[in-house]
């Protein structure tokens, strides 16, 4: 048996380390390429699904629905459940009626927010610019329901969680600047509409909004926007 000099052993170790280094580098590259490829595919999928959603929803002239909203508050164990109705049209008007646990309604039309309190019967009008957060949320919701994701895609990463039914998860690119850490939209097919919106707030609060008895492209009267609202 030939004697292996210590330096050759050391050289071997160096060679082994070098080979391992190359393998690790190769593996990293493969993972990176696979990751990039996967990301591209997901983006392509998201883009396809978004295009489909946009096409399907953009033709809608009005949406009338009932909703159940469950709010889980990070400071409490029990959920708050809110039930009500909504109407939105293709001119950007929105009517949001809360029937339970309190009676209230809000309309956003022509830059004015009008709010009715069922207990006092008072109607309050405010220019939308005076309280931006509520109209912003309502406006965002309105865009999601109409499939107008263009602004959203600019501010958030959108990925497709499921293709059937289409389920989109939006996460803000800058979480610090957003009150939401994620928004998940689940769509209904045949007919096509947003069936559920789940919002996780940065505060840890979580909201699930489910739409039922959805009526698409129905006639909208001027009287639909009057406050107090019509009885269900």
């Amino acid at each position: 048996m030939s004697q292996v000099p210590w330096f050759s052993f050391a050289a071997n170790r160096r060679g082994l380390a070098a080979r391992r280094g190359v393998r690790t580098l190769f593996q990293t590259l493969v993972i990176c390429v696979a990751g990039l490829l996967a990301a591209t595919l997901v983006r392509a999928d998201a883009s396809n699904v978004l295009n489909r959603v946009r096409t399907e929803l953009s033709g809608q002239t009005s949406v009338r629905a009932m909703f159940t909203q469950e709010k889980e508050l990070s400071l409490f164990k029990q959920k708050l459940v809110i039930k009500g109705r909504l109407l939105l049209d293709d001119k950007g008007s929105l009517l949001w009626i809360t029937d339970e646990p309190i009676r209230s309604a809000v309309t956003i039309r022509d830059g004015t927010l009008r709010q009715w309190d069922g207990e006092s019967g008072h109607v309050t009008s405010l220019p939308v610019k005076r309280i931006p957060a509520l109209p912003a949320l309502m406006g965002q919701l309105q865009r999601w329901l109409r499939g107008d994701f263009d602004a959203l895609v600019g501010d958030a990463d959108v990925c497709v969680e499921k293709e059937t039914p289409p389920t989109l998860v939006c996460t803000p690119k800058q979480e610090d600047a957003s009150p939401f850490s994620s928004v998940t939209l689940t769509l209904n097919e045949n007919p096509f509409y947003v069936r559920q919106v789940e919002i996780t707030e940065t505060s840890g609060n979580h909201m699930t909004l489910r739409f039922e008895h959805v009526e698409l492209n129905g006639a909208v009267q001027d009287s639909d926007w009057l406050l107090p609202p019509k009885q269900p």
Partner: protein
Amino acid sequence: MSKSKKLCESMTVRGFLVTVSWLLSGGCASVFPPGDPVELTETQRAGLRAFPGHPYEMEQSVVLSLRGKDFPGLGITRILPGEGSFAASCLTAQGLTVFDIAGQGDRLDVCRTLPDAGDPQVVGQAFARNIQCVYFGNLPDPQASWWRDGESWTAVSALPDGGTLRHRFMCANGRLTEKCQFTRRGRLAWSVTFKDYDETGPCRIELIDRTLRWPYELTIRIQAWHRKGEP
């Protein structure tokens, strides 16, 4: 009559009129409430009540009235009377979180508010103070002086800053009906009225807060009570 004397008289009359109009407008209050001094027995003192003595949670509807506009909302509040701690979340009727606050006494451990609501610390502290006004300190100081006016007892307690705190109770059942704080100059800082009692406590609470730039009213209606830990 000399000019200076006329001026002096005119100023005295004007000062008198200003004082009278200020008093008539409710700008300040006497240290003594209407009625006659009275001493409560131990049994009567033991019967005074407002909210439960055990930990509890409430689901509420809330209307904030500010500068002639009403903002309805929903809330959940947890009170731990023994520890003096609280937690509260308030939402708009559309489910948007207006604030989440939690704390003990004057200390705020959690304070998250809607960006539109203003400085979170100022807004959080204001609502925390309102919670203190409504749910804590509902029994008068043992050194308070007591007065009886018709069917009500009123206790007047002196505050360290020179102001006074008044509690008014119904003589018939010992229920707290009103609590208000006056500054050392006799101006009303805030008041709370407690109405529509059920077996647990008052189901309608109206608070007027005049301590900030714009006075506001909060009308709280209790929808459900829960003992803490119960569903």
